[in-house]
């Protein structure tokens, strides 16, 4: 199977949260212990049984006699090492095991969801997924791909699925809470969506009231990157007199400035589904929380697994304005009979696709 992706390409490894697009192939090579179903709840993947127990514990049972793709047997130690790489630990319990968190930076659900079963053999990672990596060939990045380009192509068809990330404007946490709340409502507007993304952009998941006024204050600069330049310009226009400079920088520079809080407003793409994943971006101390946002109410709700409460807390003290959740698309060989996009990882359902002869 050959897969073309648009974006940077690095070696496929079991490390979660890699910015490389090769991470799309992670789940085909390294099996997760569990997957999300369409409702955002766990279903067993490598594990033969997964149950949420009391807060902070997940009970799992492991299959017997499973092997990695190099033929070696998968041991409990391999699974334990895989969990440990994600800040989790494994303890035997009854016929199975209990998974607990080693630290409290991200909720156990998030770390567990990102755990892929792997082992290190002869200096390289091996997994138990249905595929192994044959080769990775970088090619020019066709940024700005138009779906129209793929229309009427005899051997291809376009598959569409709901998005899980929202193009957002992240605020410098140093801005006052009240101002951030007003900015969030002002920026989450149809005029910004129209200018930045054109017609057809579905409304953001957390859309605030439209046409809210921009609060008074000093001019705010907008930091943008890559294909988000129009988004940055649209936000600056929406800010009217408060619109400062629009700095379009490489993504690495943007990440750096976010971590150093050298920005006022910045374009970013935030994981918003399933709700539990909000913890990655917003829990205090989470590796995905680049700007160092901290909200005890959010942390408490996340730790309690109360996603609705976490959302409400984020709404009260918004770290960002959520503007546009794009649908996701894949272009696949027309001979594939039942291509569907996975609810979480874009192509996690790929092993189930059937190909017409």
């Amino acid at each position, binding site marked *: 199977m050959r897969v073309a992706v648009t974006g940077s390409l690095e070696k496929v490894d079991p490390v979660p949260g890699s910015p490389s697009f090769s991470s799309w192939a992670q789940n085909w090579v390294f099996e997760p212990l569990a997957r999300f179903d369409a409702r955002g709840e766990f279903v067993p993947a490598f594990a033969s049984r997964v149950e949420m127990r009391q807060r902070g514990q997940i009970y799992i049972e492991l299959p017997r006699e499973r092997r990695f793709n190099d033929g070696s047997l998968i041991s409990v130690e391999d699974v334990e090492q895989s969990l440990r790489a994600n800040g989790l630990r494994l303890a035997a319990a009854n016929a199975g095991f209990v998974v607990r968190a080693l630290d409290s930076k991200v909720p156990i659900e998030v770390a567990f969801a990102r755990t892929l079963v792997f082992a290190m053999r002869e200096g390289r990672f091996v997994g138990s997924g249905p595929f192994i990596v044959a080769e990775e060939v970088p090619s020019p990045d066709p*940024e*700005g*791909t*138009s779906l*129209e380009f*793929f229309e009427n*192509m005899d051997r291809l068809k376009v598959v569409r699925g709901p998005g899980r990330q929202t193009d957002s404007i992240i605020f410098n946490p140093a801005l006052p809470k009240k101002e951030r709340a007003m900015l969030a409502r002002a920026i989450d507007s149809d005029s910004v969506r129209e200018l930045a993304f054109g017609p057809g952009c579905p409304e953001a998941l957390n859309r605030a009231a439209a046409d809210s006024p921009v609060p008074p204050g000093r001019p705010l600069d907008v930091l943008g990157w890559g294909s988000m330049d*129009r988004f940055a310009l649209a936000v600056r226009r929406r800010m009217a007199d408060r619109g400062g400079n629009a700095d379009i920088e490489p993504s690495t520079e943007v990440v750096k400035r976010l971590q150093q809080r050298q920005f006022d407003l910045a374009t970013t793409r935030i994981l918003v589904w399933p709700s539990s994943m909000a913890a990655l971006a917003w829990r205090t101390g989470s590796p995905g929380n680049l700007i160092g946002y901290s909200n005890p109410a959010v942390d408490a709700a996340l730790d309690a697994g109360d996603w609705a409460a976490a959302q409400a807390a984020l709404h009260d003290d918004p770290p960002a304005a959520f503007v546009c959740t794009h649908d996701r698309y894949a272009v696949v060989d027309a001979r594939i009979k039942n291509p569907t996009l996975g609810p979480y990882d874009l192509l996690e359902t790929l092993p189930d696709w059937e190909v017409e002869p």
Partner: protein
Amino acid sequence: MNRRALAMRLAAIVALSGAVPVVLLAVIGLQIVRRRGVAASQEALQAIAEQAAGRISNYISQQRVTLRAVAMAVSGEPDAERRLADVTLDAPTLSHVRLIDAQTPANQLPRLRPEEIARALSGHEVHSDTYMAGVSLAQDACCPARKPGTAVCATFDLLELQRQVQRIRIAESGYALAFDRNGRLVASGSGSLRAAVLSGEPIAESPFAVQLTNAGAAPQRLASSTGADVLAGWAHLKDLGWSIAVEQPIDEALRGVRTALGLLGLGALFALGISLALGTAQARKMLVTLELEERWKTAGRLAAGVSHDLGHRLAILQQTAALAETNDPAFLPRIRESLASEVSTLRKFVADFADLTREPKAADFLPVELNALIESVRRSVQPQAAAAQVAIEAQRAPADVWVRGDRYLLERAALNLVYNAMEASSPGARVTLSVRRAGERALLQVEDRGQGIATDRLHSLFDSFVSTKRTGAHVGMGLPNVRRIALAHDGNISVLSNLGQGSLFTLDLPAQDSSSFSS
């Protein structure tokens, strides 16, 4: 040839004489229609290509006009950079709109050569070649700004041009292609060729696009990269360096013409069929009429010949009867001789008619060896020959000569020829019967050294009721009967004759190999 075959032949001649010109005209007409159909399709494709080129040219012009207007309106303002950056929000096809000058870092300059940048900064409008930015086309352009030494530059997003090319559809399968000046496919209405837009690989039409760029010509009929033979229209945009090809599979382009050609062809065949049917029907009617007429004529000629000959015989018999009524014994020898002669003559007369009643049938033909046949004939006529004091000689072929036929009729034909030869010969003369094989033919010849036949009678010698000897018992049925027998055996009869030197009759029949009779 029987009446049916003759009718068919006549009908075919009549029909073909009328149909051939019609068919020829139809073929010429079909060719004209076909060529005209091809030309019309090519003209239509050419027009579409030129129309597409015009639209693309207009679009590029609009982008440049917009950039010029922006440059003039904004570049002199204090917040020019910010306002230029915002232009992309209102004119989405313009991106990276910025002010440049001599100090602008290289990584912020448009995709122009240094000399073009210098030209732009000196107050001229310049633009790059089109290039691929991802899967979208783009072109960088600069135009003079208000402040000397500066220029406003932008990147034109030419995705709309790709859309325009992709939207061009001709009937069911026709499409348009756009190439840059290097022959690279930059937009494709054909989905199967669109991968080449990304890969940059040349396609079959690429060399023709380059030819067009270099003021050459591109073919209007070609084997497309899609694998189909197509008709094509081409247009070139000199300013942009693009070539536009609009293609349509020949099968589809000429579908209408082919339908018309098919209908015309069917019409011509129908007309030919009607012509043949009418011709056949009319020919049969005419033949029936002619045959009836011919029968009456034949009956008349037969009646004339019979009445003449029988009248002559009757006169002789009346004279003989008158001699008998004298009861003079001295007349008895003369009466006896006369009666014997008339009986012989009338017997031959009856035999000639009897021959006419026998129809040769190929299914009843048997192998006949001609050497044996002429020997039999020689023996049959020997008594008469002796009486007439004529020598009969049979010259055999070195080997057996076989034919397939009705032995009785073939012998009757040979006897007829020999009798004629004997009657034409003077006492003491010789009549020669001979057989030989000439390739695939078997020849039976009868030669005499008699008085010969006048040249003016030779052409009608084998016609019915025409005889060179109308004074005796000859109604003129002998030689026509020989000819009838020859034709029935797929053969022929011919004669060579010189007055005062004699005649040579040749019965020419298809020879058979004796081995063919074994089956």
